[in-house]
């Protein structure tokens, strides 16, 4: 079938996938915040676009089997303001609140952000810390990939050509709290380094570090150490493990070395903050 130009607004997912499959130059557009910026810069020149806006089931948050489903076309603003992300899952809402600025949060969507996979983004470490999985649709069906496995490299995910992120799934949150600690040069900038952390009332800790490598940094060993205790020594050990796993770059925001220095320092700050707030 010949590829067709123009801006397409399918109302169902199968329709969207079918158009996408027609050619390499046809791209999906979600909130547009990343894609249109790249088009304006001449980095990407799609021959046609398939809008995900208006597709049944792709927008909004809902409770599903005790967990939470966030449709790919849910705006950052709605995730920031939702009442559904309670307990440890609130780390995702806290990250959403710190993305860019209020205007960009009106436009960007979680599906678009996650598919773009810029390591400076705020959702990826938060989703890893929340134990989220990414639901991917293809013409032959759908599958889920754990967030930790979904982000593969710089701007690279497990998405194959023609596939779409359609939802983020969060497991049933534990009673407790989540926190996204972001260190950036000025408000609205990408993180130099960030810590996404959850602390359950049970004492279980999950942490992921952002901005310090091509993908979020997480370590079961570090999580176990901090879940057992959150003493100064434990946090330093955990910070050291995460720092050693990090693969940061030098860029205008900071040097790789500075980012490594930051990991244990920000981790300590985040965990102390969580402990204080939970009263544990």
């Amino acid at each position: 079938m010949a590829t067709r130009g123009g801006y397409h607004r399918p109302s169902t997912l199968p329709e969207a996938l079918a158009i996408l499959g027609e050619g390499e130059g046809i791209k999906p557009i979600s909130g547009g915040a990343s894609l249109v910026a790249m088009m304006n810069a001449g980095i990407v020149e799609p021959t046609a676009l398939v809008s995900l806006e208006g597709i049944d089931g792709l927008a909004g948050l809902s409770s599903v089997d005790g967990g939470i489903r966030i449709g790919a076309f849910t705006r950052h603003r709605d995730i920031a303001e939702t009442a559904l992300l309670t307990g440890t899952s609130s780390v995702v809402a806290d990250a959403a609140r710190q993305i860019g600025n209020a205007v960009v949060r009106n436009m960007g969507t979680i599906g678009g952000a996650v598919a773009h996979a810029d390591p400076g983004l705020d959702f990826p470490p938060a989703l890893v810390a929340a134990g989220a999985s990414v639901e991917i649709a293809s013409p032959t069906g759908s599958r889920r990939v754990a967030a930790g496995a979904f982000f593969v490299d710089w701007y690279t995910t497990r998405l194959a050509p023609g596939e779409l992120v359609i939802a983020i799934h969060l497991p049933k949150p534990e009673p407790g709290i989540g926190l996204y600690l972001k260190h950036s040069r000025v408000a609205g900038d990408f993180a130099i380094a960030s810590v996404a952390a959850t602390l359950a009332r049970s004492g279980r800790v999950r942490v992921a570090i952002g901005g310090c490598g091509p993908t979020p940094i997480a370590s079961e060993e570090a999580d176990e150490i901090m879940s057992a205790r959150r003493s100064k020594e434990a946090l330093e050990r955990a910070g050291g493990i995460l720092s050693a796993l990090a693969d940061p770059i030098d860029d205008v925001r900071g040097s790789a070395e500075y980012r490594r220095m930051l990991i244990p320092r920000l981790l300590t700050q985040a965990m102390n903050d969580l402990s204080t707030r939970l009263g544990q």
Partner: protein
Amino acid sequence: MTAQVGRSLPQLESEAKTSGSAKYIADLTLPRMLHGAVLQSPHAHARILGYDLREALAQPGVQAIVTGDDVQDAHRMGAFIKDEHAIAKGKVRYVGEAVAAVAAETEAIARHAARLIRVDYAELPAVLTPEAALAPGAPVIHEEFSSFFKVFDTGTDGNLCSRTSFATGDIARGWAESDRIFENHFETQPQAHLSLEPCGALADVDASGAVTLWSANQSVFRVQANVCESLGLPMARLRCLTPMIGAGFGNKMEPHVQPIVVLLALKARRPVKMILTREQDFEMVRARHPFKIRVKTGVKKDGTLVAREVDVLLDGGAFADDSPGVLGYSLLMSCGPYRIPHAHCHGRLAYTNRMRFGAMRGFGVPQVNFATESQLDEIADALGMDPLDLRRKNILREGDSWFGGQPLLSNGLAECIERVRAASDWSSPRARTAPSGKRRALGMSCAGHIGGLLSTGAIVRLLEDGTVALSTGAVDIGQGSNTVLTQMCAEALKVPASSVRINSPDTDGSPYNWGTTASRITFMTGRSVLGAAGEVERKIRQQAAEIFECAAEDIELLPGGKAALKGVPGKAVSFAEVSARAHWAFGGPIVGTHSWVFDQATVDPKRAVVVGLPFPRIGIFSFNATVVEVEVDDATGKTSVLRAWSACDVGRAINPRMVEGQIEGGFVQGMGYALVEELVWDGARLANPTLMDYKIPTFVEAPAEMHPIIVESHDPVGPYGAKSVGEIGINGVASAIANAVAAATGARIRGLPLTAERVLRATLGPGA
């Protein structure tokens, strides 16, 4: 009727700007207008061997392409050294330099066609630092440098573009008389102007080949001179006009794309508009000079300053632009507002294969101020003195002369210091209590600035109905000069501001005005406005005297546009009546003019020896004292300014709210310079020419409390006593912040910006 001077009149352009109807350069269109796009050089230094335009020209919609082949080698422009062609010719000298340009039916076609232009280059070795440029055997960037016209020639060659030296007293004696000598090295970074409006121009050509040019500019007369010099056009064939301007800060004072746009319009014989992208605005216009600064200061143990030596090295980039002026200015200011009997301040400016560096708010003073005011704090600490007391002990007093010998006719610095001291509740030690995980402290600095320079004029006309037309050629770039000049004219003629209409700068009709730069419009053009209004007043009184058959001295102006016989109630005529008589009966329409060039010598040859001073007569002095309270995060090193107090001696605030706006805006721009802003090169190319990567302060970073304090020293020669405010508010910000960070952390950092990383490493000590 209320007085106009001292009144915070809202900007005259308020309705236009708040309704979205104000027309900036990008908003202008003409019928049959084409759009321009540039092709930029990928090389830092290369000979241009040839162009192949065939594929580009073949694109549908392309109407003209211009390259260096369209300009003559002899036609060069430049503010101090005429070293620059309208578009790269023969050579490219920095990555990003414009090497070709296309005019086409749409912007998209123009950009696409530009990418299809083939340029054949032979790469040359490039020099990317002043040290490399000045090393023996370095590749020469301007091979014909010795033949270029220079406003002042300091006998330099190779890549040494200019040098300056100021000396007063006897420096050897100064060191000998000092009890302690301090010597430190400092380094400052390039800063982008980042006016919200990118540079752009629109040129139209009429049937006779005469050109009309609108552009985002800070001086229609500099645009005219630069375009005419670089294209070999007589000035009578070019008219330059001014749309609403979206700020400049120095970026729009000298040329950007105007010569190229005119060249395209002349070739296409249709109007051509070109607006730079944000990336191009970063990459191909100009930026603030990076400086390397060595400061050596000798003091007595009681804190009296005895001797100062400053040595600066400037990277000027590929073209001289305003650099020789920045070098000179910075050295003139490098003793600061203090009595230092023995001083030798000198420096050099090198060409490099980077984008030209040029005028940016402060014009070299933020850089040297950072160095000298940081060192003064270190000296205070070493002597066990309060830094504020050290300043007070040494400041210039009224009647003193600035470094070089120019007498200060007004000096409110002592009051500035006292006002910020009191308002900030200053005390030493400067550390303050802070929440856990943070450190807080106060820091201070003092600064001076010199504003004025060159020439300006004004024409005031009484219209037939008695209202007033004011023409000055002064470009309002958003700072409010239209409003302020209107206020001064209205005050002089005792009419409401609404009776005065100020026109937009137009080289066809406006009197020459060097430009909106060097904090000069209120002082320089204000004097002209008063001069011209004074002549109008004399002519009004003369007309009224003829009407009343009395002497002109017996006539006075009354508020509301009337001329009256003194002491005789009821004997008054309106300006309308006077103007009617002038137009139709006797004397001719009433016009007043004034024209002058700044006239106070900067250097007294009996007191100072100077080589390479950009101009012999520069300006008058404004002063500032700044105190900030900073908070440093222990975990990250990130620094926030919590509160700021900035007292500026502006002579007289013609419009106090606008003066506050300049102080506040200058502060935040200075804060960006101090903490986060830095243009970074990755080899030869700019690594962060985007707003994603180059960050300025946002609403969140602006201090929770900002206290602009206006000090009025009533200068005897300033219009209504006014001096200047445009730049004085930025000069001392980085040093005040650096001093506060040092007080908070114990770490002295001698480079800018004070990024979180730099502060954290300095706080952790060596090996961090």
